[in-house]
């Protein structure tokens, strides 16, 4: 059984410890950023940021809601990025059987820009990024190196409030259900984001679109069934047919 994250947004204070710890563990260089009128920085995931806390604010009947979304790869059970990747370069994107981690290997440099766009589009959460200089595809690694050695992923290790949780899938699902039941008392809209399909489960307390455009798979249509989700895999083949 794979490992699973539970990201409990009802406990996230957006301290960004996870965002920074991720960079530190992976020794990713800093981007030159600028203030654009938001605390969210860098503005998006990029080859140097596998983890990004997204900030989103809105008024809910005159009450301020400020939602924090520590975005990262969901390590899908059946990863569309890998399915798509295999179409072009088999074995460059792999899934660790033991942990369930979906990994972009060093071999992903073989993807062309266009091929990469297909991989990115296959991801329902818009996670994959490509370094334009090296061509390397990148995203969250589940800190697979740490996990293999019995350590927690860096982002989970540093979280001060219990927003980031990690463990056996069965345990995380149990925790998710119990937290959901508690949180629902205060936040009736609370839900788990695509829990059946992914190994990074977000507990949301507001509508998914109030966090981010890719909070859940195809946010515009609400949570997908597994069937719909897998159906997205057909898209690239259609795209290829056109070429």
């Amino acid at each position, binding site marked *: 059984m794979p490992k699973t994250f539970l990201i409990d947004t009802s406990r996230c*204070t957006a301290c960004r410890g996870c965002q920074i710890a991720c960079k530190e563990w992976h020794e990713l260089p800093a981007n030159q950023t600028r203030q654009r009128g*938001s605390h969210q920085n860098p503005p998006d995931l990029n080859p140097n940021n596998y983890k990004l806390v997204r900030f989103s604010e809105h008024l809910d009947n005159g009450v301020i809601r400020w939602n924090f979304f520590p975005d990262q790869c969901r390590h899908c059970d059946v990863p569309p990025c890998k399915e798509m990747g295999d179409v072009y370069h088999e074995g460059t994107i792999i899934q660790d059987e033991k942990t369930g981690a979906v990994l972009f290997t060093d071999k992903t440099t073989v993807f062309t820009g266009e091929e990469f766009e297909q991989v990115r589009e296959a991801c329902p959460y818009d996670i994959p990024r490509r370094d334009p200089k090296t061509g390397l595809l990148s995203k969250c690694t589940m800190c697979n190196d740490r996990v293999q050695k019995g350590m927690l992923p860096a982002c989970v290790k540093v979280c001060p409030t219990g927003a980031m949780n990690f463990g056996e899938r069965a345990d995380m699902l149990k925790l998710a259900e119990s937290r959901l039941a508690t949180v629902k008392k205060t936040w009736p809209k609370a839900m788990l984001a695509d829990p059946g399909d992914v190994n990074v489960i977000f507990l949301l307390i507001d509508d998914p679109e109030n966090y981010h455009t890719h909070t859940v798979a195809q946010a515009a249509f609400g949570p997908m069934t597994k069937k719909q989700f897998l159906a997205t895999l057909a898209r690239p083949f259609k795209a290829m047919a056109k070429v």
Partner: protein
Amino acid sequence: MTNHWIDIKNADSILIMGSNAAEHHPISFKWVLEAKDKGATVMHVDPKFSRTSARSDFHVPLRSGTDIAFLGGMIKYILENDAYFKEYVVEYTNASLIVGKDFGFSDGLFTGYDAKTRSYDKSKWGFEMDENGVPKRDKTLKNPRCVFQLMKKHYSRYGIDAVSSTTGVSAENLLKVYKTYAATGKPDKAGTVMYALGWTQHTVGVQNIRSAGIIQLLLGNIGVAGGGINALRGEPNVQGSTDHALLYHIIPGYMAMPHNGWQTYDDYNKANTPVSRDPMSANWWQNKPKYFTSLLKAWYGDSATQENGFCYELLPKVEKGEDYSYMYLFDRMYRNKIRGGIIIGLNPMNSIPNTNKVRKALDNLDWLVASELHHSETTDNWHRPGVDPKKVKTEVFLLPSAHRLEKEGSVTNSGRWLLWHYQVVPPAFEAKPFGDMFVGFMQRLKALYAKEGGTLPEAVLKLDYPDKYDSDELCARINGRFTRDTKVGDKLYKKGQLVPSFAALQADGSTSSLNWLYTGSFTEEDGNKAKRRDTAQTDMQKAIGLYPNWAWCWPVNRRVLYNRASVDLNGKPYNPAKAVIEWKDGKWVGDVPDGGWPPLATGKGKLPFIMTVHGTGQLYGPGRMDGPFSEHYEPVETPVNSNMFSKQLSSPVYKFMSSDMDKLAKPADPNYPIVLTTYNVTEHWCGGGETRNIPNLLEAEPQLYVEMSPELAQEKGIKNGDGVIVESIRGRVEAIAMVTIRMRPLKVHGRIIHEIGMPFCFGWTTPGTGDSTNRLTSWVGDPNTTIPEFKACCVNIRKADKLTELAT
């Protein structure tokens, strides 16, 4: 903190006010959320909706500088709705004490005010004493001159309408907070107050906290688990720095700095040792001569003898009544009265108000020694924009400092825990810990005085200063040693052995200690207790998350201060489910009690507030410079020109400067109609001198911004992300507009007042990030502490045509 971090989880109600705990003390929210999980209500009262507000049950915006009005309204609510904990108030606070006839209050002024000196004669505020010199009490609380009745009258003026109009908080929101928090006045409920610089950095800073103290005493929330007045101290070991007297007005262990009015050892002790004739009062500070003498012994070693007043006369003494806080220090520097000095652990060219003046003042030095990890706005002041380095005479010695991960030593956290930090890596290159530098300075000074003599060389030559810096050895000196063979109880301690507890410190020269509060932290029996990492606890301790064997806590490992106020007169806990201590089978169990006397009902007990002269919690506090009760005064720079509560617009005793650069906008100045508040950010540390040099942190918060409401933005034609100019009468600053619904326009005195907020962590040595926000803030201070009013000043804002400070 009277309590400690873990204890926050025991609260039933949490009032976060004057603090942005989730952002500036992130770990605190581990415990806040645990309390919330168990049903606690978390309230955030603050001008800005922050990450703290996002995780609170609700947020209440208020105008900066109006906390006393807000809290005064709560005191009135508690009193008028009988929400206070009566037994606690009667038995443990000074509610029943009768105040002397000279005390009075009229139209914003207490009796004893002298307009010429802008000060009060505090002798007018004393209590009435009986023939034995014991304060008169009326436990029925009916006497119109008792504290309770005077307090009721004083705060009766804080009605909802006046408070709402002053603070900008709606009546509905006021009542929501008052009602929720006042519910902790029941014996088995606890409420905690978490505050930080949002309360202290005002011209009424001390009285903000006094107001909270009054509320906590009325509700019986001091001494209990989940209660207390909890100052969230700064990450840079602020608690430890204060304990060891990094401030000018105290020496280690919260004793007064000697001044020229106390020329001898006996003068000092006489003036500083409080006397109580009340057999019920422990009056703990009566022991001060023991602590003071032990400190002198630690400073001067064998040279300090009974005959020479333990070398007291060698100590430097300040001028009585003179203020040596940094505002005054830099004012003297500005007026060319200071030639040189050492600046360590602070970046004043960024972090002190009216930075334009501070930067100019520093140019007047002949020499400056600084020790830093990186070049800062202070170390490189003469290179600052607009200044020709050739024209600045200051010779700067920049010593490379070891990073805190490169050295070992102790840190005292907000909960008063002494925690050991181990060295991770040795210092790079020639970097050294401060301890090594200070020992080096002193060795050279001593050698120079020995060789060349000078004025009073003994003051330096006789110091018992170590030859080499050793953090363990320094901790042992702080704990203190016996200077001759001494018996404590049945145990004989040899000369040179460690003193087991401050109860064993003496005024006869037989003991030394660099800080009596820490005596017991390093013992013959257990070694350096800062290194303890044992989670053992009793079931009773487990119920409240108390870990007596983890590290060590001052005083005497007592984790919750004033804990004898958590039990009734028979020593039984008011809240048995979360008992801190309990009198059981003839002894106290649980936490270390505030004194081991039996419960009060035995007739042999002592009142629980042992650090006050009369043993009671001070609803009425006659020791402060600005009055025994708190009173709302407007910030010195204010957008309004009247005070709803009196004719006295601003504090009658606030401190200010009068140089040509110390300009203040007049009340309700149309040129500066907007309130500015300033703050830290999670991602940078204080003035940012360290963290701006950490690329990943700079990536997350790269440039100076100003948070403002969409309404104000529209009024000013500013869009989110635009470059703007913020101006006060003292200076101008460039920033990027962050237009956000998290800032709300407030209805104050019948009209809309806008407030904006800016961090102060950016400076010119990190190009393109912006420069000191404190060029805007004002040099006015609290009369008790001289802390500047960073949290409220008046400004204007406009769209910038061109940016230079933020050019990337």
